[in-house]
């Protein structure tokens, strides 16, 4: 079946511009996650959605970053007034609804490589 897909695969923008990154999770997965992977580093958590609501947004670095998931499926990560330091690979993952006594595997998409010039 289809995995997690992300568009675009690459995005080049200029400092100060606005960008949107899209994530299509696996059908039936109610949980959706965004991570950011800078060069030479491991992915860092940004935000987690359970259905339409953001259950944990503690990883968003500042108020220039915002994410939505209006219908509980597709999610969009929005970055305002981009800075060169925002350049990274943005990863999306989805899973079945997590339970307190178990772990549901997070399936990752291929990522969007964002370059801010």
């Amino acid at each position, binding site marked *: 079946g289809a995995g997690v897909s992300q568009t675009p695969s690459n995005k080049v923008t200029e400092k100060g511009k606005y960008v949107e990154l899209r994530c299509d999770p696996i059908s039936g997965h109610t949980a959706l996650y965004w*991570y950011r992977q800078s060069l030479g580093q491991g992915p860092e*958590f940004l935000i987690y959605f359970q259905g339409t609501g953001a259950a944990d947004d503690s990883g968003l670095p500042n108020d220039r970053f915002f994410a939505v998931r209006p219908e509980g499926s597709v999610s969009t990560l929005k970055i305002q007034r981009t800075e060169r330091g925002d350049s990274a690979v943005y990863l999306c993952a989805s899973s079945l609804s997590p*339970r307190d006594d178990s*772990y549901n595997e997070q*399936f990752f998409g291929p990522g969007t490589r964002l370059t801010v010039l």
Partner: protein
Amino acid sequence: AQSVTQLDSHVSVSEGTPVLLRCNYSSSYSPSLFWYVQHPNKGLQLLLKYTSAATLVKGINGFEAEFKKSETSFHLTKPSAHMSDAAEYFCVVSAIGNEKLTFGTGTRLTIIP
């Protein structure tokens, strides 16, 4: 708070020899621990997971890891390396019931023919 430390940023082994990728963790709670692999231009893939059941965990492609609470370690091993194992490997921790994954900085595994 939780974190993982991957002790080697780069490991090189000859094809057919054993692989050891080292990981130490720190967690305030009973941790869940994972190893993910990232091949070039491909998404992250789960290799194996530990969630408080058996301490020796077997994963895909012949990899396994042992949870050692006394040493706060979760090292990844494979008896015989294959060329297709060349990739970036991440040790990951989370708390049971906490959906956020915390990744290590990664270990790049190179296989020498």
